[in-house]
């Protein structure tokens, strides 16, 4: 009996520790893609609650696999982990870097480094480079509704949506 009790105490202690870890998941994360969506359920095919732009700070409330339930302003919804980073993304057009106030590991400057300006300069190095079709293919978009129809008509039943 005493042995039983010690096992229980140990497991209970571990559980409390893990619950503490769960509480820590209520952290802030930033959107690291051009735009992401918070959805009503953890699926890209779920109804969109609100769009969140590059750099937006979300408060993570819950995690389920690769999906996180987050708060953004007054909205709550599910967002895929691949669109988020723990770094703070600074959207600044200024000339001064905010580095120094925050550790380099914790921030990322939007538009820093390899950006449109660098691409423009690089393009001058080879006159054969043509971005017309790169720009054009980036306008090829597919809506969740189109995917739903495509899945239904093709009798496809994905078992893993978004990791």
């Amino acid at each position: 009996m005493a042995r039983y009790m010690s096992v229980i105490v140990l497991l209970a202690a571990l559980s409390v520790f893990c619950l503490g870890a769960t509480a820590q998941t209520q952290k802030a994360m930033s959107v690291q893609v051009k735009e992401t969506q918070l959805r009503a359920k953890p699926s890209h095919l779920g109804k969109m609650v609100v769009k969140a732009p590059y750099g937006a700070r979300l408060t993570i409330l819950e995690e389920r696999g690769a999906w996180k339930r987050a708060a953004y302003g007054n909205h709550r919804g599910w967002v895929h982990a691949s669109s988020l980073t723990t770094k703070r993304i600074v959207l600044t057009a200024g000339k001064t870097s905010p580095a120094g106030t925050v550790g380099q590991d914790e921030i990322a400057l939007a538009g820093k480094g390899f950006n449109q300006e660098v691409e423009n300069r690089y393009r001058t190095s080879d006159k054969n480079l043509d971005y017309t079709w790169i720009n054009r293919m980036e306008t090829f978009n597919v809506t969740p509704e189109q995917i739903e129809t495509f899945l239904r008509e093709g009798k496809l039943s994905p078992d893993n949506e978004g990791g």
Partner: protein
Amino acid sequence: MKKITVHLALFISLLLLCGCAAVETATTVATDIAVQKGTMTKEQAASIRTGTTAVARGLEEFTPEQEYYIGRSVGAVVLTKYKPLNDAKANSYLNLLGHTLVLASDTPELFAGFHFLVLDSDDINAFATPGGHVFITRGLIRCCRTEDELAAVVAHEIGHIQMRHGMKAIQKARLAEALTVLAREGVKTYGDQELTKLSNSFGDVISDITTTMINNGYSRAYEYQADAAAVTLLKHAGYEPGALVKMLQIMSKELKPGGSDFAKTHPSPQARMNELKMSAPTQQTQNVRTERFTRAAGHLL
């Protein structure tokens, strides 16, 4: 009664512990998938991990935004070699198919998303940039008879992106140089000198990636990894995973020795099939899918 209480307490504690484990985010590394699916041994996975850890740590420094710009220029270089196919029907079908697969992948959201384009060439070739631009030649589409087989081709390319093979093609010295320049030039608007430095470094990165992708090919290990990832992706999306083998069987007949396409940059279809240790599906793929493949891409065959 007391015993029941003890068991109940034990059960609840275990339940709580299981919940904790679930909190751990499932950031699936490709090697893990491959091991789970039996397409790779633990030893192989471990050796791949050891070899890539050092470089991978450096790659974490690139933001998805920077990878997007790298991807755009890698794509532009691909398009100096191959002309795009201006075919709205084929391209929109390829994008629908591609996004269906992307949603089942571990990396459904890149900086500017995934975009797919058919290339107007008889070569059997395909490219995937770190920015999510995926190119498939008409010649490669000709190796497919069904939607599931085309899905296998596209899934292999998504696999390369998921495992960041393009970025891993950057030579270590160039990577170190690029990361140094990027760390130093912290401002958003650059003077001419900084811009030149950044642009040179950017050019070096693009050159490393495109030389590997277009001329030399990735390592055989990377190609097998992309095949293993494709099988997983096909399963998750609801496609027939054996369609990859079926496509490779056709490719082995179509591929011309000495060509500068997959004949040069990829392990032979036979070697890839041996590595997959899978057989082609015996039953017919869903007719509805084959029909829509023929409708959208039949004129390219």
